[in-house]
């Protein structure tokens, strides 16, 4: 079994790059960096093939016993099943493509080796996260990706704001992490194990549906998930995280790390199903997030920020799917999203690179002809994001969620409406971005044109985005269930509300129309009558800036948490308790001065002292 090699190879790569990075010839750096991930990807394919062809429901390998104290015995052990296979496939394969892309993208950067080292470390951590057989090891991966995210967001460390963004990302996700940790503590208290499989088995055995403990635990786990996956209320770090290089945004902040929350909930779905209330909260969080983030995306002018909000919004869809127990739909959307969002980020990276690091969409335009490969692949990605019907993978994955949010057992009309609004907005902002960037007149001259190293990953991802959708087709439309069947041993199929069955086609039609109308609206405002867009903007300036700032969450947290903390810390910089001790010293000195006054040097005064002493002693005798 070479399962352990999959995370180990990138780790080895990272190690080599960190230790010898300085001395290595530049040529060798991407080879080691991409190569290790590439090997991992190849191994994943081989292992995936073996997994599918074998009848085993999981592969398991234990490297060593990490700790063993009185029943608390997490091991460094990996567990491969269908769910983790999907994840490691996306991680290694998309990761590999992004590495390849980066080899060219980052070539002129000073921290070339460092960059690959971090990326490799990230891949290793992410793989550990999804392969871990127990929660403690998963937590290791969980925090590991947080670290890499921090390092990569702040990769260009000379800029103060990058550092700020990096720290923000780390700290905000850590808030979620401790919630996850509490969940683990409680799980351990309940079951005296943190092995994922055992926990699942025991949970099913010991808890009834609606159990309060299950609710608390699942909410705590959810806390971890929303942190990592940038869902409400911990979503604020992700837009800022765009300070990192574009491949980083593609890999970490779109394709893999941010979906860790999705993975966690899917992984612990047994617990969540025992707590329907928690599930509903997951759904609500997803629904609200996807709408809010969509509107925020609508007003951004930084190309990558649009994509960032779009990522938040799309993960909202995944959460919505999880919330209605549409497990495989969520994972399916995760996979397709990983493809197209990675594609979009990489393409956006190419655009920004070619425009001399210009991020403002309003300063772009007319790139359609200058960067044809980028244009076409971006278009495919955008189509997928906007879920243009029939031809895009995004359509199939998102459509499934739309449908299940209404028709699933836990579905609800409000979920559906939110998803629908989200779909419309998505479509609008996607094509707003498309039109602003590639159409219209050229505002900034094009410099560097991406070469083969960047184009090939784009093309591969474009193909995947399109093809990927066809492995899972709805009832009304081919009814391919390859993906959900594959996941069925792990993730149960969704139960439908029976009376809804017949409406499926209608819903799909609505979804398609909404997507297309979104394109239309975008066309109207940004190609046909751009003045109208400006008018609209100025007529609702407050709303615009409110959305632009991501619904003011940053400001809110700043006022509520950050500023008070910083203020209090700074006020107390010199430690008020220390003053307390200093006052003891002051009192002692004060006493000293008073007593020193009695030592006046005058003889008669001293005699008086003796007399007073004598009188007091005699008085004592008289008492």
């Amino acid at each position, binding site marked *: 079994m070479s399962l352990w090699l999959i995370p180990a190879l990138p780790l080895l790569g990272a190690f080599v790059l960190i230790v010898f990075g300085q001395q290595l010839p530049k040529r060798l750096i991407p080879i080691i960096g991409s190569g290790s991930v590439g090997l991992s990807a190849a191994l994943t394919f081989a292992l995936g093939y073996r997994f599918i062809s074998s009848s085993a429901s999981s592969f398991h390998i234990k490297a060593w016993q990490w700790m063993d104290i009185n029943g608390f015995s997490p091991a460094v052990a990996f567990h491969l099943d269908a769910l983790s296979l999907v994840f490691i496939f996306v991680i290694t394969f998309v990761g590999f493509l992004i590495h390849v892309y980066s080899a060219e993208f980052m070539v002129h950067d000073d921290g070339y080796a460092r960059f690959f080292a971090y990326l490799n470390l990230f891949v290793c951590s992410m793989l550990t996260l999804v392969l871990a057989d127990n929660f403690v090891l998963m937590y290791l991966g969980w925090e590991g990706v947080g670290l890499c995210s921090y390092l990569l967001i702040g990769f260009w460390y000379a800029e103060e704001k990058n550092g700020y963004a990096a720290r923000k990302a780390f700290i905000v996700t850590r808030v979620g992490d401790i919630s996850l940790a509490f969940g683990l503590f409680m799980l351990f208290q309940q079951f005296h194990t943190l092995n994922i499989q055992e926990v699942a088995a025991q949970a099913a055995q010991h808890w009834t549906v609606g159990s309060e403990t299950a609710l608390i635990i699942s909410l705590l786990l959810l806390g971890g998930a929303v942190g990592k996956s940038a869902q409400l209320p911990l979503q604020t770090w992700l837009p800022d995280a765009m300070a990192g290089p574009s491949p980083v945004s593609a890999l970490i902040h779109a394709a893999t790390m941010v979906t860790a929350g999705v993975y966690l909930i899917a992984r612990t779905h047994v617990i969540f199903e025992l707590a329907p209330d928690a599930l509903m909260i997951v759904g609500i969080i997803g629904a609200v997030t996807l709408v809010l983030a969509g509107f925020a995306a609508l007003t951004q002018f930084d190309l990558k920020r649009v994509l960032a909000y779009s990522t938040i919004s799309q993960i909202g869809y995944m959460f919505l799917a999880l919330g209605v127990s549409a497990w495989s739909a969520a994972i399916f959307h995760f996979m397709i999203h990983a493809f197209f969002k990675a594609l979009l980020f990489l393409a956006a990276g190419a655009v920004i690179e070619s425009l001399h690091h210009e991020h403002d969409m309003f300063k772009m335009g007319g790139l359609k002809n200058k960067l044809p490969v980028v244009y076409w692949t971006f278009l495919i990605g955008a189509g997928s994001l906007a879920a243009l019907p029939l031809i895009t993978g995004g359509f199939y994955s998102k459509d499934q969620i739309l449908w299940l949010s209404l028709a699933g057992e836990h579905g609800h009309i409000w979920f559906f409406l939110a998803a629908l609004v989200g779909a419309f907005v998505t479509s609008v902002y996607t094509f707003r971005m498309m039109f602003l960037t590639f159409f219209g007149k050229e505002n900034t001259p094009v410099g560097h044109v991406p070469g083969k190293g960047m184009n090939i990953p784009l093309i591969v991802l474009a193909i995947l985005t399109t093809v990927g959708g066809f492995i899972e087709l709805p009832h009304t439309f081919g009814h391919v269930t390859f993906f959900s069947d594959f996941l069925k041993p792990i993730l149960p199929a969704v139960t439908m509300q029976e009376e809804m069955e017949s409406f499926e086609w209608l819903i799909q039609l609505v979804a398609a129309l909404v997507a297309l109308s979104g394109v239309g609206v975008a066309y109207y405002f940004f190609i046909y009558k751009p003045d109208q867009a400006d008018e609209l903007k100025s007529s609702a300036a407050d709303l615009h800036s409110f959305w632009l700032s991501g619904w003011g969450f940053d400001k809110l947290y700043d006022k509520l948490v950050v500023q008070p903390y910083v203020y209090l810390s700074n006020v107390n910089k010199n430690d008020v308790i220390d003053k307390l001790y200093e006052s003891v010293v002051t009192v002692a000195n004060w006493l000293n001065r008073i007593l020193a006054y009695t030592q006046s040097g005058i003889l008669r005064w001293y005699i008086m002292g003796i*007399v007073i002493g004598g009188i007091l002693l005699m008085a004592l005798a008289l008492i």
Partner: protein
Amino acid sequence: MQVSAEYGLLLASVLFTLGLIGVLVRRNIIFMLVCVEIMLNAAGLAFIVAGSKWTQADGQVMFIFILTMAAAEVSVGLALILQIYHQLKTLDGDAANSMKG
């Protein structure tokens, strides 16, 4: 000759206290020394009273030793006063306060 012992001790106490007042109020070092002598003498009186009370010679013996000590002390004290007077040109006890704190 019969006197109550309390009266003897009372006289000693009064003299002792007068000597005490003298030491406390006079700034002239010689006066202080003299007043200390008065106090010592008062103590000697107390011993004599106690000796007669118990009709022992011990009281008087102690008085003799007090006398000896007073003599020795006065001699050393006066020598010191001479020294001080040479240096400070005054007999002010309060002036000798170069050390304090």
